[in-house]
């Protein structure tokens, strides 16, 4: 089976797990375990021996990133570990977890396993990094979902491990840049590692730090005990095979290359030994079994890191054996603690007792696991510890240093024996405890027993592991498989055995004198501050720092934000003289001057206006002048659009006037002066910038193409419209989406924050100003005008392709008709405006996208199709324009609806059916009516939900 298929199946297992957990609840653990077992068999069938199996699936060819996979001795070992321990944990989970939340649990656990599998099989730096981050995220989510209090520890875990991820990213970038390839094997075999000490040191440090965070090494150790809020199966997997082993894998992977740098062994052995002793000491302090085991992992991984730092083939063999031994005894340990907690409701060694009486079988199992952890023969842990001591004594740097290292390691081993024994002697003897009712422990015991018995049994037959471990050690030591010695349980009487014996003796002594030791250690903090506090403090510090930086720009005054671009542009204007190309052609024509005067008059009037109404009218004046400008410049379509928009803008602004005071809030004098200066500078800059940057060249080639070819290409003679609906329809589609979003945004804003209600307009108090009787003329006129405008709207839509008109303009005309009907209505509660504006705007997008999909019939999204029906030329561009129509119509309708009526569209029920109801039947826009209605259903369900 190809490696890529195995990976794909591992991904498929995630989906399978989700489905199974939904159907079977917690019992899904069984089929998932079977799936993992099958995957392990598939991997085993590809056993690479001392060679390697490689495979490449193209991924991002342009930057030479591929899903390169490689199964060699090292990845084979870890892949099996991930899958087999995974299967054990799954079996265990089928009894441990609750069916509630089983879907999330099993999905994440299988995703965790799949990420680990990808990580160990990756033969590409990028893939390696991605898989590394996947494991980080999976463990974060698994910790996070475990219980309600898990938030802070999960975040601290993420903070540390993701920080390590950044180091790995740095290493990946550095290595791929220096070696010129992202292919892992090639990059690791590159000569730069040997020839460029600076590069080798930098890469070695980055890789080591990444691995240290992942494997919870000092000074990043705090997350692992912190993460024990996770349930037992998660902890078992995290500690035994998945998360922390990823760090060890990375070290073993990079060791042949990184050990070219002298920094590598110093760093690994130094921090590894510190962690080994410190972790063991902390473990001895704990009374919570789970915490004890967590610190034990910290300590054991420290030992592993130190021995990887030694780097000889012997050392790598020791590391490989210890990885397996640790996976077995640590998974058994964590599962056992979970079992105790589930069955007896506590995991504190001061409360536990009598396991020997109540569950002799499980008691034997934990004794086996603890023996392996302590390194008592014949367990596998004994074999690995012998090898570790042996390789340390033969340290290439010299025997004096070797002895020092081995003695420190054996000090850690003394403590290890002590805490392993403590785990046993405090829980086994004594009276049996009353178990909780209804806890099924069969599957749990099975999984624990498998791990524990294997861990011991395989020690007796350790030569069976030769084929598995020798190739792994060879890969990580960078030598041929022939240079690795075979494994055996008994090496004769030698120095490592003496160290082992001393460690056991010392550990047992501590155990015998444990009350005295407890008095010395338990509850006493050995460091001035513990890691968790430090991480939490740094996290809080980062957030505080971010807030402080944000404060620099945090103000609720719009002007403070709006002034920034104005000032920046004005400053940029100072550079204009450097770019000045001359005055250009003096393209002035007769109508320009009066138009300028009109605009200027409008602008000045807005600025000096105190009353809101006056300002709105003045803005309208400027807007109309601009519309005429457009007309003069040969853009009748644009001028029409501007004209209609101007009308509607004034209408909508007037709608909100009643909610605001009649006059503007005065601005302080100093600010007015400042604004005046900024305005003057901005105006001058704009003037010279316009002259400098525009009008110095003729018709653009693309503009000329449109003018010449629009009719041939599209059959339309209104070039602007053909650009909108044919040539650049994708742009227009994007704009439609913006419009529809604006409609939604207006809606949500007004739902979320109710509009202010201003003063009752005093106008209403005089009979002359009574809007009901005042509007009577308009109302009469309206009966004829509104239908006429709607017909005009439809006409503008239909002719848009060839003459001024089109969807935008047509929709604005239609909306103006509605606005007119609204203004002339006798009361606020005007039902005719109560149209499903959201559905209309949405229908616009659906119509436009649907029309675009039609274009796929002719090979391209949004390409218009052309037909001749009965001699009339028809193009799907018209349908697209209909989409434009609907979207524009929808947004204006939303505004009228929500701002015009008292409480938006919600409180319209009380309004009397007004006499103006008649035109309303037509008021549904002629063409879009069908589409709008088609979405009524969707709309009403949406209403019901909200």
């Amino acid at each position, binding site marked *: 089976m190809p490696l890529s298929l195995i990976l794909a199946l591992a991904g498929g297992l995630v989906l399978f797990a989700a489905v199974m957990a939904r159907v079977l609840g917690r019992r899904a653990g069984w089929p998932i375990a079977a799936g993992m077992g099958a995957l392990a068999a598939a991997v085993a069938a590809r056993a690479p021996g001392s060679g390697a199996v490689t495979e490449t699936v193209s991924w991002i060819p342009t930057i030479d990133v591929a899903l390169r996979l490689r199964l060699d001795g090292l990845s084979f070992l870890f892949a099996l570990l991930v899958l087999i321990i995974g299967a054990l944990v799954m079996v265990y989970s089928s009894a441990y977890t609750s069916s509630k939340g089983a879907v999330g649990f099993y999905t994440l656990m299988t995703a965790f396993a799949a990420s680990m599998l990808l990580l160990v099989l990756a033969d590409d730096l990028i893939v390696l990094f991605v898989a590394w981050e996947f494991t980080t995220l999976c463990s974060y989510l698994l910790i996070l979902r475990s219980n309600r209090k898990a938030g802070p520890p999960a975040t601290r875990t993420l903070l540390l491990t993701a920080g390590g991820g950044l180091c790995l990213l740095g290493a990946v970038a550095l290595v791929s840049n220096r070696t010129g390839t992202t292919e892992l094997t090639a990059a690791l075999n590159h000569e730069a590692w040997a020839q460029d000490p600076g590069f080798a040191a930098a890469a070695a440090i980055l890789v080591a730090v990444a691995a240290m965070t992942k494997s919870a090494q000092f000074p990043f150790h705090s997350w692992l005990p912190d993460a024990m809020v996770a349930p037992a199966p998660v902890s078992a997997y995290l500690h035994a095979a998945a998360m922390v082993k990823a760090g060890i894998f990375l070290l073993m992977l990079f060791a042949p290359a990184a050990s070219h740098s002298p920094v590598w062994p110093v760093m690994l052995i130094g921090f590894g030994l510190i962690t080994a002793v410190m972790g063991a000491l902390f473990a001895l302090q704990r009374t919570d079994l789970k915490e004890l085991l967590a610190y034990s992992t910290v300590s054991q991984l420290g030992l592993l890191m130190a021995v990887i730092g030694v780097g000889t083939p012997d050392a790598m063999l020791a590391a490989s054996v210890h990885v397996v031994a640790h996976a077995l005894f640590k998974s058994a340990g964590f599962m056992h603690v979970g079992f105790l907690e589930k069955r007896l409701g506590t995991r504190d060694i001061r409360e536990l007792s009598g396991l020997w009486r109540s569950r002799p079988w499980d008691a034997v199992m934990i004794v086996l696991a603890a023996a392996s952890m302590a390194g008592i023969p014949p367990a596998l842990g004994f074999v690995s510890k012998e090898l570790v001591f042996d390789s340390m004594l033969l340290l290439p740097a010299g025997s004096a240093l070797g002895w020092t290292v081995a003695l420190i390691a054996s000090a850690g081993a003394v403590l290890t024996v002590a805490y392993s024994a403590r785990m046993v002697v405090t829980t086994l003897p004594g009276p049996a405890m009353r178990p909780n009712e209804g806890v099924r422990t069969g599957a749990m015991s099975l999984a624990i027993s498998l791990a524990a018995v294997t861990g011991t049994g395989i020690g007796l037959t350790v030569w069976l592991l030769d084929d598995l471990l020798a190739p792994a050690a060879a890969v990580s030591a960078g030598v041929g498989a022939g240079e690795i010695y075979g494994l055996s349980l008994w090496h004769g009487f030698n120095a490592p055995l003496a160290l082992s014996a001393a460690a056991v003796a010392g550990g047992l002594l501590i155990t015998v004198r444990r009350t005295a030791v407890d008095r010395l250690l338990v509850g006493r903090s050995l460091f001035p501050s513990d890691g968790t506090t430090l991480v939490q403090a740094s996290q809080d510090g980062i957030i505080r720092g971010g807030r402080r930086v944000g404060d620099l720009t945090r103000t609720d005054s719009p002007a403070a934000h709006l002034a920034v671009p104005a000032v920046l542009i004005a400053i940029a204007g100072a550079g204009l003289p450097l770019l000045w190309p001359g005055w250009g052609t003096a393209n002035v024509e007769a109508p320009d001057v009066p138009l300028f005067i009109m605009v200027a008059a409008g602008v000045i009037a807005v600025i000096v206006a105190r009353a809101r109404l006056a300002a709105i009218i003045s803005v309208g004046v400027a807007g109309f002048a601009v519309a005429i400008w*457009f007309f003069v410049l040969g853009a009748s379509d644009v001028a029409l659009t501007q004209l209609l928009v101007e009308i509607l803008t004034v209408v909508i602004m007037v709608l909100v006037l009643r909610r605001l005071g009649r006059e503007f809030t005065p601005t302080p004098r100093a600010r007015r002066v400042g604004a005046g200066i900024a305005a003057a500078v901005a105006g001058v800059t704009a003037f010279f910038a316009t002259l400098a940057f525009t009008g110095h060249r003729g018709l653009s080639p693309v503009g000329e193409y449109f003018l010449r070819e629009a009719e041939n290409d599209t059959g339309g003679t209104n070039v602007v419209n053909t650009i909108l609906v044919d040539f650049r329809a994708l742009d227009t589609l994007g704009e439609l989406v913006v419009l529809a979003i604006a409609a939604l945004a207006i809606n949500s804003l007004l739902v979320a924050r109710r509009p*202010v209600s201003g003063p009752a307009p005093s106008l209403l108090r005089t009979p002359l100003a009574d809007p009901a009787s005042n509007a009577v003329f308009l109302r009469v006129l309206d009966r004829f005008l509104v239908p006429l405008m709607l017909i005009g709207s439809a006409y503008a839509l239909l002719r848009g392709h060839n003459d001024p008109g089109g969807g*935008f303009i047509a929709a604005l005309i239609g909306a103006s008709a509605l606005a007119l009907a609204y203004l002339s209505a006798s009361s606020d509660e005007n039902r005719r405006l109560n149209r499903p504006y959201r559905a209309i705007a949405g229908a616009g997008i659906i119509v436009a996208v649907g029309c675009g999909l039609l274009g796929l019939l002719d090979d391209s999204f949004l390409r218009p199709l052309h037909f001749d029906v009965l001699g009339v030329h028809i193009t799907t561009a018209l349908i697209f324009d209909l989409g434009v129509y609907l979207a524009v119509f929808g947004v204006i309708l939303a505004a009228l609806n929500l701002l015009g009526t008292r409480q938006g569209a919600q409180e319209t029920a009380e309004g009397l059916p007004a006499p103006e109801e008649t035109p309303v039947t037509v008021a549904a826009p002629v063409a879009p009516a069908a589409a709008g209605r088609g979405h009524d259903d969707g709309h009403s369900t949406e209403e019901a939900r909200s």
Partner: protein
Amino acid sequence: MILALTIAVLVAGAVYLVLQKDFFRVVLGFVLLSHAVNLLLFSAGGIDRRGEPLGSGPDPAVTADALPQAFVLTAIVIAFAITIYLIVLAVTGRPDTDGDAAAGAAGTEQDTDDEEARR
């Protein structure tokens, strides 16, 4: 030249208005700014040729560039939608229970700002 002057006046008015205290004035400033930018787009297309890009076979020598026109047409509508959005922002934010209605009406924008900050 005159077009550049028009743009300059619009920009100056817009900058003045957006720096005012009353949010409704900021909205008006935004409207003026959109006019200025639209005219600038026209200016970029060249304003020597002012013929309508309509009908069969327009003469590129005298016809205006249709591309900026198409840009401006959609820009107008989008600016309109944004204007509506800004108008809605101008009328939301102060709760209805703001006691004295007159005070609410004359209420400074600062009130609004404080309330937003408190939320």
